[in-house]
């Protein structure tokens, strides 16, 4: 199959000769056209701000904490950004993380199985949940808002109902003493010390996922399909892009990352509360939007989403480091996010104007 990528971030200004797509662009212009540029500037601004107002912000150990906070959001912000570039939303992403953790914990416990079995079952069930979202969306042609809102509510109900039914309480039983737990903990929730700074393994997961997603977006045919499906689905379909399959796979990507986050949750705390995760889906979407993903689809980057998650991590922890009056916590958080996004938009506009 041969498909041509839609010209990402370039505007067809008529009259350019020869064909403007063949024009060589300078590296500086290329940089200015990147979707994550605004968020990088925003991140630098937020970093400098907290470096000045909070003296403990610049310590090495603080950096480890901020990175951890950013990574738990970032792991989910990456697939959510890809999905958003593909033109869709997933409101069930936050609760799916909890579902995934509950499934592995309860399966291992109830079957008295090695915890790796539970982890494997959880991966399959979670991927099936993602596929369900994708298939429902493409089959019914209903907006993703409705489909995933339905999944979101159903998952909340299932999380509570099944956990109560199976465990008898609203949180899972501890699986910390079961076989396979230490090795699974190593993969999903270990930490190592680099130069006196404690770094969590989620940071590594995050980095790998960002690199993988960036490679997919920029170097593979599937990446082109994502941009095409999000930019104009009908046009994409007309030139032979398998829009339905692309979207289903994107939802399964979200599910895969929800599985990774869910396993981290399980193996770092060993007991899972069934009511957790509600509201986190918005945080993932916010991170992607700060990172330059358009809510309407067709534009954005995985690196941008990572920077968005980093801004979120810095802001939420920076407020603590700065020791501001906690009554105003949420206000500060909202104002910082709004400022970062505005700065992001402003830089992008300037960048586009210089073309």
């Amino acid at each position, binding site marked *: 199959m041969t498909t041509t990528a839609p010209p990402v971030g370039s505007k067809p200004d008529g009259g350019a000769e020869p064909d403007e797509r063949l024009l060589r662009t300078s590296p500086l212009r290329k940089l200015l056209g990147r979707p994550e540029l605004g968020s990088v500037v925003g991140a630098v601004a937020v970093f400098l701000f907290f470096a000045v107002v909070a003296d403990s912000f610049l310590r090495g150990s603080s950096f480890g904490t901020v990175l951890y906070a950013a990574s738990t959001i970032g792991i989910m912000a990456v697939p959510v950004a890809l999905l958003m570039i593909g033109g869709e939303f997933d409101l069930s992403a936050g609760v799916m993380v909890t579902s995934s953790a509950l499934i592995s914990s309860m399966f291992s416990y109830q079957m008295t199985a090695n915890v790796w079995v539970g982890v494997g079952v959880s991966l399959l069930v979670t991927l*099936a949940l993602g596929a369900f979202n994708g298939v429902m969306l493409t089959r019914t042609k209903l907006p993703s808002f409705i489909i995933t809102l339905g999944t979101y509510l159903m998952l909340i109900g299932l999380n509570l109902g099944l956990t109560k039914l199976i465990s008898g309480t609203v949180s899972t039983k501890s699986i910390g003493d079961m076989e396979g737990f230490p090795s699974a903990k190593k993969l999903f929730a270990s930490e190592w010390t680099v130069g006196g700074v404690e770094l969590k393994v989620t940071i590594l997961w995050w980095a790998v996922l960002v690199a993988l997603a960036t490679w997919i977006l920029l170097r593979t045919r599937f990446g082109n399909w994502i941009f095409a499906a999000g930019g104009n689905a009908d046009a994409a379909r007309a030139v032979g892009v398998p829009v339905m399959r692309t979207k289903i796979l994107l939802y399964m990507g979200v599910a895969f990352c929800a599985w990774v986050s869910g396993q981290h949750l399980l193996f770092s705390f060993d007991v899972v509360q069934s009511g957790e995760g509600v509201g986190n889906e918005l945080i993932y979407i916010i991170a992607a939007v700060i990172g330059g993903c358009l809510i309407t689809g067709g534009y954005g980057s995985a690196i941008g989403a990572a920077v968005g998650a980093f801004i979120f991590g810095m802001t939420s922890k920076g407020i603590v480091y700065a020791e501001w009056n906690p009554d105003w916590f949420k206000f500060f958080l909202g104002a910082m996010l709004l400022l970062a996004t505005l700065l992001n938009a402003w830089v992008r506009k300037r960048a586009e104007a210089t073309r």
Partner: protein
Amino acid sequence: MTRVRTGVRATSAVLAAVLGASVLAGCSSTGGRRAEERAAKAAAQAQGRAAVNTPKWTIAMVTHSGDGDTFWDIVQSGAKQAAVKDNVNFLYAHSDEGQQQAQLVDSYIDKKVDGLIVTLAKPDAMKAVVAKARKAGIPVITVNSGAEQSKAFGALTHIGQDETIAGQAVGDELDKRGKKKALCVVHEQGNVGLEQRCAGAKKNFDGQLQNLYVDGTNMPDVQSSIEAKLQADPSIDSVVTLGAPFADAAVKAKGTAQSKAEVDTFDLNASVAASLKAGTLGFAVDQQPYLQGYEAVDLLWLNKYNADVLGGGQPVLTGPQVITKQDAGALEAFTKRGTR
């Protein structure tokens, strides 16, 4: 289209295969359900049967609990056990929205239950329905929250912990342990009861106490926020969490931040009992939720059977009970079966 369908079919086939195979292979010889079943045998003897032959009265409980709250699970288990003993039909409903909680009470009044147990976390929303129940001749007992309003609203009695007194107990205990600077971790911003606990602790604590607000539905956030706070202020020597699940996150945060602070908590559960025993937690303040459910049902039964009233309009306190390493061992088994 066909590709999609085969994909789904393949996924479900693989799923079914793995589910089947994993039951046969990969068993864990430690922990898990089998260990639980062994423990359950011992606990089975705790279950009672009806000890009286009064008619089968119906008692309903409506709380302000959110979905999936461990604490209210224990309250219910106490109420259910008392209901079995008293030959009572026990009904339960909850909503964290004041208006909806009132509507639930309303529907139980319509059902003409024989007794009502309600919480007054949002007293103004509940005032009218409690009056309505009284008018309908249904005795009401308030539990957990609403000690101040209970009598004025016409409830028989209030059973629960006074949050301020519980907080003060924490302040005293911190003093006893020679702490100088404490952190009070609030997992739900704007919750009156939680604020009262921190305020109570602050009042009796001779040292300095500050609040830290975290997002209780997001455990990694709870952990990293406490971590950040401990890094920002290394002089903090004790962290008090206001709910059992958050104690664990605080212990992890303390490790990462390389802080020497002692972690203490409100409420009890299996992992808190284990941590107390292991010494990773300093102390826990328990308000004995089991007792709140049990006593409420039992008192309503006593009132119907014998016109008994307890406390003479004064709240009956179920806490605070300060639990330390010494008591933890004895309570561990009870936390595992979900009654402490």
